[in-house]
Every structure is written in C-alpha cells, then in structure tokens.
C-alpha cells in the first residue's frame, strides 16, 4: 500500500516535470508576447508589467484573419481529401491484400524520405503552368499528397485490427462494397479515423516549407504570417512571440477540444 503510494507520487512528479519541460517553451513564448521588445531580450524574468503593445503592432501590420482563414481551409480541405482517398485504399490493402501490398505500403512511405526542397523547382514549374501558385487549391493538393502516406499507413493499421468476420457478415447480408465501408468499417473504426484526421490537420497546419514557397499573398497561411515577423535586423522577439501565440492558439484549442478522441485513437488497438 505504502510503496504503491510512493510509486504513484514519484510517477506523478516525473510526469509533471516532463510536461513542464515540454510546455515551457510555449509558456515562455506566451509570456514574451506580452513584453516590450527591450524586455524580451533583457535578462529573463517572470515578473514584468504586461503590455499589449506587440499585439497592437502585429495587428496593424498584417490581417491575422486572412492568414488564419487560409490555414483553416487548407488544413481541413487537405485532410478531407486525404481521408477520401485514404479510406478506400487502406480498405483494399487491409482486407483484400495481394502479394504486392507490403511493397506498395513501403514504397508510399519512402516518398516521405525525400527532402522536399529536392522537388521544389519541378513542382514550382508545374504549379506555374497550371496557374496554381498562390492558390489554396494548390496548397490543398500538395498537403494531401504530403500526408497521404501517413494517413494510409495509420488507417491500414486501424483497419487491420478489425475482425474480418464482421465485414463478411455484412456481405452475407447483401451489403455492397461501398455499403460495407460506409455502414460497417467507418463507424467501427471511427476513433482511428478521427485521430488520423486530427494528425493530418495538425501536420498541415504546421507545415512551413511548401506554404512559404508556393504562396505569396492571397493563399498565405499562418506559417507565412509568423515568418513575416522574424528579422535579421532590429528587435523582433516580442512581436514574433505574439504572432506565434496567435498562430498556435486555434490549433491548440482545437487539440484541447478533441483531446479525448485523439488519445482514444492513438491508443486504439494498443491493448489486444
């Protein structure tokens, strides 16, 4: 009894310490956003008079909502598209495997190993000719392709855990393939699909390479918004922190609200 209590206490302390270490940069960013530029580079302190100066400055220089709306469109648009393509392909790989399925899965993952900058110029040229530079559709297409391997892999492992018999029973009752997917597979693996979708949203939200390189003003998402406040000349830490706080706030709140889904999805099938 006693040892288990000490154990629990130690565990709690360790967990809280790790959480604090991980959370500290975000906390520091949040605090720095409320400092003046001079305070932001002065010796670190937790005590200062908060000011909204930086928030006023960033709002006067760029329209936050324009960027935020682009981020929302692009992150959710690409996730929907990736799920739309990913669910049928993961279904076929999980339930109707051929001898090439394993190879196909590995090949898809291998596309993630190429540094994106290696294909920047070809993609830029294609986008130029298709008129997709600085468009939200262009970014949605790129993000969908970027996240598709991960989405398919995650869905594949979730689908694999579903007993085949259930789908077979459905087929016995005369369900067509798309009824099978729509009324059996999706409802039964919803937590997995949800966490896959959430991960895809977060990855798209945070993506900075393509969003900086393929957009200029109309389709620029929040990553471009943050990038505009960094500078090799002059003081910018307070403004950059304020901008970053504004940029992570929506996704942080979103993550908070969907925390239950996410944890359930990520541990789904972990205990067999």
């Amino acid at each position: 009894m006693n040892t288990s209590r000490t154990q629990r206490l130690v565990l709690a302390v360790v967990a809280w310490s790790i959480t604090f270490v991980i959370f500290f940069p975000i906390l520091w960013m949040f605090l720095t956003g409320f400092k003046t530029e001079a305070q932001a580079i002065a010796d670190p302190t937790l005590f200062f008079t908060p000011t909204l100066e930086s928030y006023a400055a960033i709002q006067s220089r760029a329209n936050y909502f324009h960027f935020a709306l682009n981020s929302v469109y692009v992150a959710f648009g690409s996730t929907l598209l990736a799920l739309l393509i990913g669910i049928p392909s993961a279904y076929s790989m999980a339930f109707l495997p051929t001898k090439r399925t394993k190879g196909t899965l590995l090949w898809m993952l291998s596309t993630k190993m190429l540094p994106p900058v290696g294909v920047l110029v070809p993609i830029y040229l294609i986008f130029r000719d298709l008129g997709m530079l600085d468009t939200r559709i262009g970014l949605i297409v790129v993000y969908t392709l970027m996240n598709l391997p991960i989405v398919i892999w995650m869905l594949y492992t979730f689908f694999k855990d579903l007993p085949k018999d259930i789908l077979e029973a459905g087929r016995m009752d005369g369900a067509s393939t798309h009824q099978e997917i729509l009324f059996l597979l999706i409802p039964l693996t919803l937590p997995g699909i949800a966490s896959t979708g959430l991960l895809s949203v977060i990855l798209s939200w945070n993506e900075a390479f393509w969003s900086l390189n393929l957009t200029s003003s109309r389709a620029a998402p929040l990553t471009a918004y943050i990038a505009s406040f960094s500078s090799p000349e002059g003081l910018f830490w307070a403004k950059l922190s304020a901008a970053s706080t504004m940029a992570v706030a929506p996704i942080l709140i979103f993550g908070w609200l969907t925390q239950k889904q996410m944890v359930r999805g990520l541990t789904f099938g972990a205990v067999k």
Partner: protein
Amino acid sequence: MKLSHALPLATLAVAVSAASHAQEITVATVNNNDMVIMQSLTDEFEQAHPGISVNWVVLEENVLRQRLTTDIATGGGQFDVMTIGTYEAPIWAERGWLVPLDDLPEAYQVDDLLRPVRDGLSYDGTLHALPFYGESSMLYYRTDLFEQHGISMPEQPSWDEVYEWAGQIHDPDNRLYGICLRGKPGWGENMAFVSTLVNTFGGRWFDEDWNPELNSPEWQEAISFYVDLMNNYGPPGASSNGFNENQALFSSGRCGMWIDATSAAGRIYDPRESDVADVLGFSQAPVAETPKGSHWLWSWALGIPASSEEQDAAKQFITWATSQEYIELVGETEGWTSVPPGTRASTYEDERYIEAAPFAGFVLEAMQNADPTDSTLKPSPYTGVQFVGIPEFQAIGTQVGQSIAAALTGQMPVEQALESAQRSAERAMRQAGYYD
C-alpha cells in the same frame, strides 16, 4: 422575370470588368525597420496612385532570398516588386531577370542617388533596381568609457589602437566587454565583417585567375588577430552573435566598441531603444595595412522582375518608395532619424536630417569612399567590398564563415580552419568551371 435576373448579372459583369482594370501589385520585402515603415505608408501611395493596390509579402532575409530566387529563376511571376541587395542586382540583371530602369522620369532625379550605391545596382551602366536604403560600416563606441580611461578617438583609428583600447575597457566581472564583433557564420553575417578586416590587412578572396587565397599570410594574420581580439576582449559566446545580438549587447551597455552597419545608428541613437544613446560616439571603421575596403557598402533596393505582369504599376511604386518625397514623408511622419539613409545626396543636405542625426556626416563619408570595384590592396577580379559578386559566393562565403566560427570557438586552430576553407573554396570554384 427573366429580365430581372439578367439585369443584376449585367451589372455584376460590368463591376467585374471594372475591377480587373484596377492594378494589383505584390511587393516582396524583408522585415527590417525601414521596410516596416514603408508598409505602414501604403495608404499614402494608394491615395496618390488611385487604381493601384499593394499586397505585401514580408519575410526574413534568408527565407526571402530563397523564395525570390525560386520565383525569378523559374519566371513564376508571383511578385511585381522584389527587395534585393547589391549582391543580387548585377547577377540577376546579367541573366535578364530584372527590368532595366533606363527611362526614369526627370522628377525622380536619378543624379541625386549616391554614386557608389548607384553603381552597385547597375549592370552595363544601366540601373536595374532603385536603392531604398544604403549602409556602410563604422565604429561605434561609448564616450563615457573612453573618457574614463583617458582615450581620445582619432579621426581614423587603427586596428592596433582598437586592440589596445579593448584591453583597457574590458571588464568581464561587470559584464562589460571591450569589443563586440560579428561571429555568427554566414556570408552576410560574420563574413561581411571578416571580409572588410581581411581587405584592410591587405588580403583578397581571389587572385586575378580566380584562385582562392584563403590560406595566404594576409588572411592568417587577419583571422588570428580577430580570434585573439575576440577571445581576449570579446563577449562570451561571440560565435553566435550576429548583427542583431550585437546591437542588443551594445545598446544595453555591454560593449565598449562595436563595428557594424551604419544603418544601426538611428536605433542606437534612439533613447527608446538604447541605454547608451547619450554616450554614443562614432568613428570611421579601423584600418590596418590599407584603408582600401576597410568598410563595406550595401544597399537594399527595389527591382522589378521581368516576369511581372504589372510592370507599369510596379515602376510607379518603386519610384515613389525611393524618391526624395518619400524620404520627406517619413521624416514628417516618423521623425528624421527614421528616414531611410544612404541613398540620396539631398538627404545629407537637409538641415532637418543633419540636426536630428549627428552621425549623418560619418555615414555619408563612409559610403562615398567605399569603392566596390577597387576594394583590395592587390588587384582582384571581382566587385563587392564585403562579398564577391559571383553566384557561387553565397555557398563559398557561408562555408568559409563556418570555418572561421570554428576557429573563433577554438574547435580548430586558425591555420587549419583557413586550410579547410581554402580547400572547400577551391573545390567549389572548380565545380563551377572557373578552371579545370
């Protein structure tokens, strides 16, 4: 019924065609103070030029450079105005990427532009970008510390004197350091400063046949001097200090001397941003063997990519943002220390500017006697004081910068660092086809 539907549609069509006549230009720029002011004055431009609206893309210098290069090299046409430096302007102009600016209106007074700045942005005698602000480098020092130690600043300090003064002022127990200099690796960071130091020690990047000279006695002497100076009398962790970090150190009173861009003067002299505004002294950048190339020349300029579809509107914008009227406008709205410096002779004749900015004379002199076409003691085949005007330089400069930072931190001796820098530069030049 049908007609009532058609009418609003027709109006809409008219409205759409009217809207497509309005010109929209996208301006890409860096997030430096002077550019932020330009962005905040957009309304003034749009009011004076009805029919043109301006979109801004603001990025950090290195990100911007990469972004613009991708777009201009592929003819992407995403930008109508690009902010580029003296390094890019002639290289891009040579490839036909920039619109030549040979038909500027008379009211623009092109002859008012400072000669070295204008030359730096020209290719084949034609301007390809208009200077937004320009800078050289100079020595900043704290007059209170100099008085305390009985040092008087000569008109032209030498590097030996600077070394001696740094030793007198250095007081690390009180977190006061003799001198702050750039150490963060990068062709535009530590190498900008190091190149001027090597120049004045009599060295050069390349000989007349484009062979690198990084292991020459001049480089050895200059880099050993730099490493000694910084290790003895510099702040701790100097290899991670770039322009920004040093500005922060100097303006919070931690450095006795600082040698860097003249464009920092306005901010160091502004008591809202600096603790040393009232004890600030200026002097010319120190010299050693030769005054040639002892201080750099740089300007940020606005150019129009040949791939832009709104070249006319873009031209109206850049002639506005680099005009005398614009400088006047900033002076009136933001205060005279905030006007973009180093572009026009008329700025330095303006009483209001001279009165507000006591450093004006130094800046003008430094800029006027910096000569990018003749910045080394021995002749060299390249233009540029603190850089070499060839496309390969970004990569070479940054790699050499990393070797020098390694020497500064003591990871390897100076000789070895320069040997490895020399080898990597030779390799890069051979790959680029300068020789077999």
